[in-house]
């Protein structure tokens, strides 16, 4: 091999290495947490938002995907949506209107347990779910709502709270975020 050939083969190797590096960089996890909020239970949602805001404090980027029973947590307290079919009206009436209406997954006891827990939280200075959602917004936690579940339950975008960074997506968006995150959770 003469010098020119050597340089050429070296160059080839360098380029192959560069490609590998680019691929590696693309696939390596970012300092990010991707969460699915499937549950609409007050206790689980609280845990989710405590983890989300804590993760931001730890320097992570956080993305939350709300799907199924998690979606009513993000409903506005007030206001009615028109043009709903029978099922939409039914879901609208039966599911809680916003985070402040969510119930405990255990010991709800017809609402008594949840009320007791809320009183206790206030006494112990634990932030309410509404406050945690506000805090998450302040900390730039991104929220996506599953379009398909929303459509299934007959919810409109206008029924959802005014959150600073809110988007509507499908499963691919979640999977993209989850794939580039170093931690994923399903709550």
């Amino acid at each position: 091999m003469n010098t020119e050939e050597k340089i050429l083969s070296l160059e080839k190797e360098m380029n192959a290495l560069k490609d590998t590096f680019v691929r590696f960089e693309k696939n390596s996890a970012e300092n990010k947490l991707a969460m699915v909020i499937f549950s609409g239970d007050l206790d689980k949602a609280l845990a989710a938002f405590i983890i989300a805001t804590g993760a931001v404090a730890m320097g992570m980027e956080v993305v939350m995907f709300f799907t199924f029973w998690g979606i009513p947590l993000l409903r506005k307290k007030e206001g009615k949506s028109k043009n709903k079919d029978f099922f939409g009206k039914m879901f609208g009436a039966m599911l809680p209107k916003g985070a402040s209406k969510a119930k405990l997954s255990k010991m709800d006891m017809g609402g008594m347990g949840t009320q007791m827990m809320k009183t206790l939280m206030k006494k112990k200075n634990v932030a309410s779910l509404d406050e945690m959602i506000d805090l998450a917004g302040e900390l730039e936690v991104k929220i996506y709502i599953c379009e398909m579940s929303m459509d299934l339950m007959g919810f409109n975008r206008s029924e959802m709270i005014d959150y600073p960074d809110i988007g509507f997506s499908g499963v691919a968006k979640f999977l993209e975020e989850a794939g580039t995150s170093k931690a994923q959770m399903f709550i």
Partner: protein
Amino acid sequence: MNDKIETVKSLDLTGFACPIPIVKVSKAIKEVNQGEVIEALTSDSGALADFPAWARTSGNEIIKSEKEGENTRFFIKRS
């Protein structure tokens, strides 16, 4: 011997429950310069494990922590 640590900011986080203490500390540390020290007083007993974990992850340094009755005072240096 004078072992008083000079701080540029002091946070009173007593009464705040998880995760507010670390959220507030992580905000406050970003507002000071590298090498400067802030102090934070917390009543959250979980903070004893949480503050060091937060500092290790965020790359800041807890230079001292002291008990004050039920509370703990942390001295955190921005690195």
